């Protein structure tokens, strides 16, 4: 038993160390090629701000993926929460922005609960349930918007300051992301519900047999994801100053990529908050670094996809290596 835990810890650490190495190598490369434009305070601050929203979403997605599920509807939840929040803001510019955020979180929670009920009670496969919900949420977003965009002229400046303001000298979004990560870490590692999420992901049958209420755990995981998506959605429209029906289309793929890069297995049961943070950082780094070294826009997408592919393949090879070694050690 000890060996198993050690092996898991070891493979976690290997993966995270390799991620850190890749990040450092890319950073040095970019710094060199861009003539020193990378390690400026402004650029690093931009990098963190750009990655913050992706990182926040990755924590929620991680919980869902650990339960061996997936959530394709987060882009739509972001759009819906953002649209409803800003539409309310449009009519009442004097409202406290925190209230708008609360509304967005509530909307996201409701959407997440719908997802959770479909997966746990109706026993629909997560990919199908969230695919269907994605269509529904996005359709509702368009209906709520009545075919209008909400642009920054419609938003109050106190609201828009949320994304551009600074707390303790660091951009608000980065502070929020860090707080979310700390909460996520504590939740997954030190609370019972967090551990139940891992258990359900590892083997749903064993979890049920051990007395864990799997249905409730799944519901909780998807609801948390929905709440985080609602929160991230309102931050997203705040940052870009625009809420459209098309907001965040396809964003879920970025989030899934960040999770998988960070070591969360699609089959469930494994994944650490630290890894996910590194995965999100890597993706954000790629987005930030490539324009700096003047890589043509048209090459950026292909390179991004290639790096994701190579990282995942390398991870798999390393994993195989580690397991071979463990196997050999056991045989002797």
């Amino acid at each position: 038993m000890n060996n198993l835990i050690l092996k898991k810890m070891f493979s976690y650490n290997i993966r995270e160390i390799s991620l850190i190495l890749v990040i450092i190598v890319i950073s040095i490369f970019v710094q060199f090629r861009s003539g020193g434009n990378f390690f400026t305070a402004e650029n690093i601050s931009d990098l963190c701000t750009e990655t913050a929203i992706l990182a926040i979403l990755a924590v929620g997605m991680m919980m869902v993926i650990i339960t061996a599920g997936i959530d394709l509807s987060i882009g739509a939840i972001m759009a819906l929460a953002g649209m409803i929040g800003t539409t309310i803001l449009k009519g009442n510019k004097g409202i406290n922005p925190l209230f708008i955020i609360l509304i967005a979180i509530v909307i996201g929670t409701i959407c997440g609960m719908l997802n959770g009920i479909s997966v746990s009670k109706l026993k629909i496969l997560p990919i199908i349930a969230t695919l269907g919900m994605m269509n529904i949420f996005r359709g509702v977003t368009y209906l709520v918007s009545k075919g209008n965009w909400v642009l920054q002229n419609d938003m109050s400046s106190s609201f828009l300051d949320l994304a551009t303001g600074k707390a303790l000298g660091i951009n608000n979004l980065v502070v929020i992301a860090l707080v979310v990560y700390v909460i996520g870490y504590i939740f997954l590692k030190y609370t019972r519900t967090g551990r139940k999420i891992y258990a359900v992901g590892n083997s749903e049958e064993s979890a049920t047999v051990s007395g864990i209420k799997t249905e409730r755990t799944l519901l909780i995981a998807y609801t948390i994801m929905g709440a985080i998506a609602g929160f991230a959605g309102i931050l997203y429209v705040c940052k870009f100053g625009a809420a459209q029906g098309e907001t965040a289309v396809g964003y879920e793929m970025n989030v899934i990529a960040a999770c998988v890069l960070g070591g969360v297995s699609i089959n469930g049961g494994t994944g650490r908050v630290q890894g996910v943070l590194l995965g999100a950082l890597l993706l954000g780094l790629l987005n930030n670094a490539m324009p700096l070294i003047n890589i043509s826009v048209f090459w950026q997408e292909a390179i991004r996809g290639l790096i994701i592919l190579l990282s995942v393949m390398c991870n798999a090879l390393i994993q195989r290596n580690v397991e071979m070694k463990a196997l050999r050690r056991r045989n002797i």
Partner: protein
Amino acid sequence: MNTKKIISLCVSAVLSMSLLAGCGGTTNSDSTSTSTSASASNATYALVAKDVQNPYMKKIYEGFEKSCKEIGVTPLYKGPESATPEKQIEIINQLVAQKVAGIAVAANDADALQPALKEAMNAGISVVSLDSAVNAQSRQIHVQQADPEKIGRSLIQAACEMVHGEGGIAILSATAQATNQNLWIEWMQKELKENPTKYAKTPLIKIAYGDDDPTKSTSETQALLTNPDVKIIIAPTTVGMLAAGKVLQDKKSSVLLTGLGLPSEMSSFIEDGTCPWMYLWNPVDIGYLTGYTMNSIIKGDIKGTKGDTFTAGTLGEKAVTDAAGGGTEVMLGEPFKFDSKNIAEWKAVY
């Protein structure tokens, strides 16, 4: 296993047969209704926008609706949720099936809509393009807002003036295939090439595409600003203007902005100097002119050949001229300059 399969296949076959048989029975009644729908006063004129949510397109529809009501036909506003030609093709096909009398389209691509529009014309539907043209074979006439050469050249001249002759120019465009965007950019590049000494210190550094999407336009602007040589951004798209304006205002950047913007959206940026001046025309008028142009073609008043004239409601007499890329067009007028002196007056109009 076999029994079930055979039964289900048979039932499905029977169902589809009955469907087709039912269709055959209704063809007769349909052919009589086709001839009457075109001349009846409940004819429908449809406007296919580049993107159904774009505020500029909505203003165009306002004018279109007004002219249709004056003429006495039903207006219809359709468009895709994101500016792609594929979705426009689907919409055009649906309109053909609905047997509308006329289709006015602001194209996301000059050539991609040709097969769909040709079929519409073969079905007896009148096709005009506006704002962003389709190629000459796909339309009967184009409604042009202002001379593209004037637009392109004025924007570059304005940009050079604003930076006092020194500074890099970046263009934030809409979608890469939009006809009007590419036409204006072509004239901008011609202006730069034909006067190398005048523009020696204001080179064109980059063209970015914001796809007429506020979010993408914002991130493209931020990417442009990472280049320290860029001193002025030209955005010949209202969506791009608004997005770029906000980014520049937020960053309190020294980079300036000009282009084609809606006065209602851009008033705060003109007032605080982010955008010293900009150009546009009245989109409501374009829609209005389009309605009357389509009506004249359907009624047979004009045939879309050069030299035809017709009356376009309150806009007065309009003449058909040759268009630059082939085919014919009707011109609305001149581009109008908006600056701090007149913005207060215009921001309430459109």
